[in-house]
């Protein structure tokens, strides 16, 4: 067994970054496609997304051997910005930077309109600026989407067979992030006692992403089993099999999916409280985190 170069702190980074941007693009996309019906979701998405990205960046920096040199990622020897296209880490750093700027500005346009923030010095430039908000939101959107993919692609551009033997890791992490983002929004909606129909709608979206994720997971495992059988075995019946089957597959994907479908099927008839969507959202979030942890550690166990 090899030493662990990227420890759990990197799994946290990959998780919060993916979850954060997904909450963000969920809000923007839902609001755009509905022609402005989901403004509140867009706001919630920004409030979840931007702080999580900042937490993620902190995690990334804490894990460095030399945290104080982190700026070497963006500034070269001559103090000019550096971007290295062959380096996924370099690309990711710039995506995160761009998202923090545009998404951060977008979140400020919401913050500026909150009661408690009225009269804060800089914020007033962001208040009542629907045009600015729209522009910043759309500028941040592509970066948010690319970051969700990047968290998987980062692992794929390495020497670990479990990570680099299939072309699906970016896709898997995108889907896992999206269902985590939707679940985060569901939890906020439930915590703020929002309309049950609204929670129902998001639960429905979450179920669809959950199904897509299951399909991709299966394709990935089939491909991995032929391309890197030893790596696949680590998950399927080796060291990580309990976490994989029980944690990720059963409680992270199948159980919440069954719960969501049950709930959606019965929602028309019953006046149900929001326990089912909340519970399934919590399970999905935990499963999504566990996916990062297990893939990160199993990848390093046999490379």
């Amino acid at each position, binding site marked *: 067994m090899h030493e662990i170069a990227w420890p759990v702190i990197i799994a946290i980074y990959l998780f919060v970054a993916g979850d954060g941007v997904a909450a963000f693009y969920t809000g923007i996309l839902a609001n755009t496609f509905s022609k402005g019906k989901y403004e509140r979701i867009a706001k919630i998405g920004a409030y979840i997304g931007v702080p999580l990205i900042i937490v993620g960046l902190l995690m990334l920096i804490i894990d460095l051997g030399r945290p104080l040199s982190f700026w070497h990622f963006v500034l070269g020897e001559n103090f000019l910005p550096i971007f290295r296209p062959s380096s996924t880490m370099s690309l990711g750093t710039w995506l995160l930077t761009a998202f923090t700027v545009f998404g951060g500005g977008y979140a400020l346009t919401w913050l500026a309109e909150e009661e408690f923030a009225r009269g804060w010095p800089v914020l007033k430039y962001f208040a009542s600026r629907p045009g600015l908000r729209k522009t910043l939101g759309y500028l941040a959107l592509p970066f948010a989407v690319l970051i969700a993919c990047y968290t998987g692609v980062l692992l794929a551009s390495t020497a670990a067979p479990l990570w680099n033997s299939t*072309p699906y890791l970016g896709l898997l992490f995108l889907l896992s992030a999206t269902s985590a983002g939707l679940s985060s929004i569901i939890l906020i909606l439930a915590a703020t006692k929002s309309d049950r129909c609204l929670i129902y709608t998001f639960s429905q979206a979450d179920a669809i992403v959950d199904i897509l994720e299951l399909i991709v997971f299966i394709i990935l495992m089939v491909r991995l089993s032929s391309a890197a059988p030893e790596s696949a075995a680590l998950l399927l019946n080796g060291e990580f099999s309990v976490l994989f089957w029980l944690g990720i597959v059963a409680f992270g994907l199948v159980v919440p999916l069954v719960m969501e479908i049950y709930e959606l099927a019965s929602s028309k008839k019953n006046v149900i409280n929001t326990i089912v969507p909340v519970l399934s959202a919590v399970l999905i979030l935990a499963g999504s985190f566990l996916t990062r942890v297990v893939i990160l550690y199993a990848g390093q166990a046999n490379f």
Partner: protein
Amino acid sequence: MMAELAMFIDVSKCTGCRGCQVACKQWNELPAVKTGFSGSYENPPRIGGDTWTKVRFVEKEDSGKMRFLFRKEQCMHCTEASCEAVCAAGAIRKTDQGLVVLNDDRCVGCKNCVVACPFHAVGLSEETGSSRKCRLCYERIENGMEPACVKACPTGAVSFGERDQVLARAKQRVSVLRDSGVNATVYGENELGGLHVLYVLDDEPEVYGLPAHPRVATAGLLNNWLHALIGVGVVAFAPFWLIFRERGKAPDKSVGTGVDGNA
């Protein structure tokens, strides 16, 4: 343009004395690492930021007879160097002579190169917080000396020179070994665009812990992005467009104002 250089390691001449290992530690002033007994005299168990070269010990049973095999391992100075490709800080550069050199001052210790190297030849140093690896003693070479490990090797298993000549010598040695019935091969001629450490092996690469077909870490990058971007399209359609699209009803509120309590 200067001629490319290469180290030449003939495993059939290595006795596992580990003189190279000690010479490397001394010349580069690398600290000792605490290790335990791993079941073999191989020590330390792996290359790392504070151990840039070591001799790998392999025990192999061949028709009832135990063979002890030794291979000095270190950075291979790949032409398609994964470490260089993935480093976001631009801390790793390839020289005209084919050496891959890691600039300690630029490294931030993100360990991306550590997980990207197909030979596990680079590691994080506890001492410096940066990643470190063999740099083929390029400062010694610049001053007309051989790398420290080459100088130390008592059996001539490790040598050094211009890559073309080294390759010719390696091939010669292979034919000599083959004539005496050994299944010998050259490793590193074409792997990853050509390595600047060439081996003569007397068994399959895997036996010596070398990947038969090493891949550059960035090989799957485009394919991964492609699939992820298709996924973006799918997700944008289902669930987002399918579930959230406006189905004819006009939105019941004006855009851009504060918060709508119910949606």
